[in-house]
């Protein structure tokens, strides 16, 4: 592969992710609306929101770290996308592998944590403390799942993991071979999105939306962009691990949207958990399923 | 020439009896005669040493050849200890000019004479006599401070020692009744045939427990903490440093020459382990420095008993190394303790007032717990390598106990060191903080310097100790030296 091609891929992959991510936000809002018997926003609403937030006149910064935090939150995901193969484009996936990808996915949250910290608002700090706790909760089952898949495939290279599933057809998909891990992964993924009932760190009624409390204008806009990437990354990662990735863009996107639809639909049916209940839930069922799943794999 | 060696016993003995009389006529002569005698003793022994005759010799006293007459047996080990007795007698000489000084000085001379005798004697009965003499001298010296606590402690010591003597005598009587001789060389010849039974074992155990009183053998060492805490530190240093080692030496000789039963070694091992355990544990809670040193000394002697219990004389080198090391360390520590009496907590801030003393304390402690490259490490190293080589599980238990005891020892010794280096409590005035000075500090420094010298020259020191150990183990050499031609 020539350098130009690689450069094009590295540019296209985040761009595609961003666009698909915005559509996923749209889908999420539409599902919520349907469940609440509303019509829901128009197609370009996410884009409007981003543009609107970035062009607000009042932009309050609490210092350099506040700014850098937002930059890290977006930049981390942009980098992560290049490690996540999509049909026809592998980017630099083979140079990082799945462990690196998982770690890169933590960087946006930590950037956000730094930025929120500088805002000197206890509500924000409490939100971050909760968000990090939530991370401790869902990452444990997630790591078990990743271990199981990588061990079964004998590699941490996502390209190989996808290729193996595609070569063997439906019977070799992760979801068929490792159903328990797939279920555990789905729950962990749901929690990692921070949607109800796991939105403990947003908790508008308790801590005034937590990390977002001091965010306005382009700061909130940055977080919006980050959410687009987050939805995309999470669902694509799941598709790559368990649903054989995508051979064409069509089935790739179909799978991604379907996977995301599950947690989103559930999200709007539930109230919020308390922090310790989230921990308890995460450390009990998905962990147990995951461990049993790994036992099968090994 | 070598016959002058007899004078190292005879002169102090004579001096001990003449000193009170001399004191009446001329104080100056009386004051200087004691040290002069000891210096002469040192010189005589050093002279023999420097002649380089490594071959052991036997000196028959009164012209009767052994086994009929009594004899002195002089090998490197005996010389070494005789020299140490004279030297330490000099170092710990009671240089005071009060009313009791005459009595104390003559008692000291008596103690030196008896101790030298213990080191050199080649005959069981003589050993007993010297042993009793040493005991008598100690009683007098221990009670010399005149405090009621000292009297109580001495009385207790007296009773224990008395019963011990009776037991020793009983053991000797048993041996005599069986073999008809008390000469060690002769006994060594007869032992395999005649004393290798229950009777022999009983005799050994009686002697062991009797002499063990002085050697701080568990459980007949209960006098130790009280005496060391109440008697003058110089005497404590002499007792803990030297006399206990002499008693140990006697037991070692008996074990090597006469009693080869495995049961004998086993008893020694068990009592040694118990001594280590009880001594080190008791020291852990001690609130006074001197008492702590006394308990620690019990523990250290226990270690030497463990070493002695190694079969076939494998532990002789370790015993020697440990004994000499302990001699230096404990003497030094007791000299430091002279000015550091009372509760340990009182010593806070001492390091600022007496930096040298505190540094010496740390040095001695480090060597005692066996920090390389100080000599204590090598002594312990020789012991543990021998212990680990034994297949009997009891020896491995001994090894484990020894190692654990060292941990405890380090813990309490460095608790004291930490207190020394702490800042003094705010309301304390400078002169209230005890500090070492004068003679005791000089003496301790001397021991410290000796320790460092030994550490630097560890290779030659180790080699010469090894030579001595090999010589001691050679029973045939002992027999043929004392009784040339008559060994068959």
């Amino acid at each position, binding site marked *: 592969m020539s350098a130009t091609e690689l450069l094009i891929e590295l540019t296209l992959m985040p761009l595609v992710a961003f666009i698909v991510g915005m559509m996923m936000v749209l889908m999420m809002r539409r599902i919520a609306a349907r469940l609440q018997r509303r019509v829901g926003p128009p197609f370009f609403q996410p884009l409007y929101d981003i543009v609107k937030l970035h062009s607000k006149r009042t*932009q309050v910064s609490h210092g350099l770290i506040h700014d850098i935090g937002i930059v890290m939150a*977006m930049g981390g995901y942009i980098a992560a996308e290049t490690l996540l193969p999509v049909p026809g484009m592998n980017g630099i996936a083979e140079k990082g592998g799945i462990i690196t990808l998982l770690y890169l996915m933590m960087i946006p949250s930590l950037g956000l944590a730094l930025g929120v910290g500088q805002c000197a608002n206890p509500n924000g700090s409490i939100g971050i403390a909760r968000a990090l706790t939530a991370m401790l909760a869902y990452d444990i089952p997630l790591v078990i799942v990743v271990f199981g898949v*990588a061990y079964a495939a004998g590699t941490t290279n996502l390209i190989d993991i996808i290729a193996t599933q595609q070569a063997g057809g439906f019977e070799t998909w992760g979801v068929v071979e490792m159903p328990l891990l797939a279920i555990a992964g789905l729950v962990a993924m749901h929690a990692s999105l921070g949607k109800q009932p796991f939105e403990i760190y947003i908790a508008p009624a308790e801590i005034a939306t937590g990390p977002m409390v001091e965010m306005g204008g382009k700061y909130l806009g940055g977080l919006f962009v980050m959410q687009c990437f987050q939805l995309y990354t999470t669902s694509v990662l799941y598709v790559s691990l368990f649903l054989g990735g995508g051979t064409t863009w069509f089935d790739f996107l179909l799978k991604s949207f379907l996977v995301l639809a599950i947690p989103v639909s559930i999200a709007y049916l539930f109230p919020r958990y308390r922090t310790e209940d989230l921990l308890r839930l995460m450390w009990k069922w998905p962990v147990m399923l995951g461990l049993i799943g790994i036992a099968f794999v090994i | 020439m070598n016959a002058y060696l007899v004078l190292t016993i005879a002169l102090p003995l004579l001096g001990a009896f003449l000193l009170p009389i001399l004191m009446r006529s001329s104080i100056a002569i009386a004051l200087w005669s004691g040290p002069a005698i000891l210096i002469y003793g040192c010189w005589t022994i050093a002279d023999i040493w420097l002649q380089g005759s490594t071959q052991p010799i036997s000196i028959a006293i009164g012209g009767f050849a052994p086994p009929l007459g009594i004899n002195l047996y002089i090998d490197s080990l005996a010389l070494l200890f005789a020299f140490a007795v004279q030297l330490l007698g000099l170092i710990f000489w009671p240089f005071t000019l009060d009313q009791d000084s005459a009595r104390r000085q003559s008692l000291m001379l008596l103690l030196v004479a008896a101790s030298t005798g213990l080191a050199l004697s080649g005959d069981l009965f003589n050993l007993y006599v010297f042993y009793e003499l040493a005991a008598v001298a100690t009683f007098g010296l221990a009670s010399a401070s005149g405090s009621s606590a000292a009297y109580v402690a001495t009385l207790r010591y007296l009773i224990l020692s008395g019963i*011990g003597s009776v037991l020793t005598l009983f053991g000797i009587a048993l041996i005599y009744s069986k073999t008809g001789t008390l000469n060690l060389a002769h006994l060594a010849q007869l032992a395999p045939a005649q004393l290798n039974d229950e009777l022999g074992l009983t005799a050994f155990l009686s002697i062991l427990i009797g002499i063990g009183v002085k050697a701080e053998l568990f*459980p007949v060492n209960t006098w130790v903490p009280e005496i060391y805490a109440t008697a003058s530190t110089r005497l404590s240093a002499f007792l803990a440093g030297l006399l206990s080692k002499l008693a140990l030496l006697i037991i070692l000789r008996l074990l090597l020459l006469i009693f080869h039963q495995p049961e004998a070694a086993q008893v020694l091992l068990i009592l040694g382990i118990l001594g280590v355990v009880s001594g080190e544990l008791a020291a852990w809670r001690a609130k006074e420095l001197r008492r702590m040193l006394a308990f620690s000394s019990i523990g250290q002697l226990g270690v030497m008993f463990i070493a002695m219990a190694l079969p076939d004389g494998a532990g002789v080198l370790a015993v020697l190394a440990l004994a000499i090391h302990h001699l230096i360390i404990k003497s030094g520590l007791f000299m430091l303790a002279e000015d550091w009496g009372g509760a340990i907590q009182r010593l806070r801030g001492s390091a600022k007032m007496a930096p040298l003393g505190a540094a010496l304390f740390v040095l001695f402690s480090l060597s005692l717990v066996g920090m390389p490259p100080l000599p204590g490490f090598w002594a312990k190293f020789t012991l543990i390598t021998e212990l680990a080589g034994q297949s009997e599980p009891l020896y491995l238990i001994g090894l484990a106990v020894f190692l654990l005891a060292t941990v405890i020892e380090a813990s309490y010794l460095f608790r004291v060191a930490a207190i020394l280096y702490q800042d003094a409590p705010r309301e304390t005035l400078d002169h209230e903080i005890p500090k070492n000075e004068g003679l005791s500090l000089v003496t301790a420094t001397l021991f410290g310097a000796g320790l460092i010298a030994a550490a630097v020259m560890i290779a030659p020191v180790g080699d010469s100790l090894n030579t001595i150990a090999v010589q001691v183990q050679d029973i045939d050499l002992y027999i043929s030296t004392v009784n040339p031609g008559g060994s068959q």
Partner: protein
Amino acid sequence: MILTLLDELLLFSGVTLLVALTIGRGLAAGWMVTILYGGQLLALTKMAALGYEGGTIASSLSFEVMGQMLNWRFDALSWFFALITLGSALLSSWFSCGAWERDYIKQGGNIWLFHTAMALNVFTMLILLASGDLLSLFIGWELVSWAGFLLMALAGGVATKAAMRYITYAMAGGMAVFGGLALVYSASGSLQLEAVITAVEQISTTKLWLLVILFGGGFGIKMGLLPFHLWQAPAYAETPGPGSAFLGAISSRMGLFAILLVLVKLFGIVNIDNLKVPFTLIDARDLLAWLAVLTIILPTFTAMKQNDARHLLAWHGIGQGGYMLLGIVVADAMGGAGGLLHVFNHATYQAALFMAVTAVIYRTGTSDLNKLGGLVVRMPLSFMVLLIGIIGLAGLPPMNGFVSKWLVYRSLLNQGMPLLFLAAVIGTLGTILSVYKLIHNIFLGQLRVEHEHVAEAPWSMMIPMLILSAIIFITGLMPGIPLEWIASVLQTVGLPVPQYTLGGVESNSGSLDMIWVIGVLFAGFGIGAVIFYSAGRSKRVHQLDNYAGGHFLSADVRYQYSDNFYAGLMHLIGGWYRGSFLWLERSITSMIEFLSLGMQGLYRRANAEFYLLSTALFVIAWAVI
């Protein structure tokens, strides 16, 4: 006599010690000693062939004492550890010169003792690293232990107490090793390495078990391996600033060095793997691995509860030691390399972190996490150093800690060890939580009124911190630099060597190229920055410009979330902190206390003659029967 390179190094180190001893009171002494450390480092680089090509350089110093040969030499393993030792000594000493030193003297500290203790530590560590047989290893081991004691105790007060606790543990460890030494000697008849290697093959299983326990436990105490970890955190944390940076960076790694030498090189991982625990499926190696992950998890979660920055870091130091041991115990190419790389990485970020915290203490006088906050505007460079340090500590890209942990994870994945893998990740997650609390409570949130005029740390302290930060980043970007040394080390101790490149490792089952990863990460940040800054200008508000519940707050109202930081988590796991090890330690102490009381009672009794007679009777009866 011709001096070998190793002689030169040891001589240099000895001279440094002498200089510190003789002229240590002057203010220039610090600089002098620092320059001498630099000289030692230079002497070490003259031996760089060891690190790149292997081989050994012997010292012309050797003794024979009581039939034991003592000799000293350097190989790749020693060189690697010596490099870290001297590097951290140089930078810590540099840090201590000038401003910090003056402040230390003003507060009544004894700077002479400090420099001497540091020089002594370095000297003894080099001696330990150079040991050429088991006896010289033990000698070096004890020297290092006591030198460490000096450095830990010199602050007095709480520090002395912690040091006392340390020395009891260290003594126990030393004696375990001493006992092991004796057993090895009785089996092989010699303490030379070659003889031991041959003897191990014939040794019985029981004895090998005993040896593994004695050596593993003894050396493990130094590296704070569970359950012997309690001493370490207070002892390191209470040492004066630069001292704790030095100790935290390298001191407990001496234990790992000894484990590598004895358990891995002499005994061989295979032999340890063959030691089965009866009636179970596990063996000695699994046992070690599990101890390692427990050492990762428990201290990390203890760190999370600390309210003093130094203690928090010291507890993490214990936890990170677990990763190193874990990697080495797994012992495949990735694991071994990961464990060793983590030694290097940990030294860099831990030193930087302790220095940053010391800088904060220097300016504010406290390291209490509930009494700080918002310092980022006052001390931005220190903030940056701390940030780089914690990213390294938490093991996130782009810093070096990520690479070593990645290698350890990969080895666990390759070997199919899900539970260990999970435990290692839990440790990392716990670390992330804990270090966020650290940086948040010091540098983020509300600035306290009394810190409004605090200045950035002086340059004498800043430069070493920046150098360390640069190393953390560069070795994160190009882990191939240290991996080249590590490859030689792995060869020396007989472990497989991974295929490394400048940017990471190559492997059929998934590679890592940090140059690319960091490249895209920074490109991502760049794009994020473009998006962010191309939007409208933002208005910078003052840090104390804050509101609560619709009211503006003045600066004297404390409005900072710092205490009980992870309240939700503690609701669940708070009850799991039972202090079991503390309880264990106390109960052992009480037991000794009780026994000691009993023994004293034994000696205090007046009826001694009764003992004597009864013993005599008993013994005689026993003999006759």
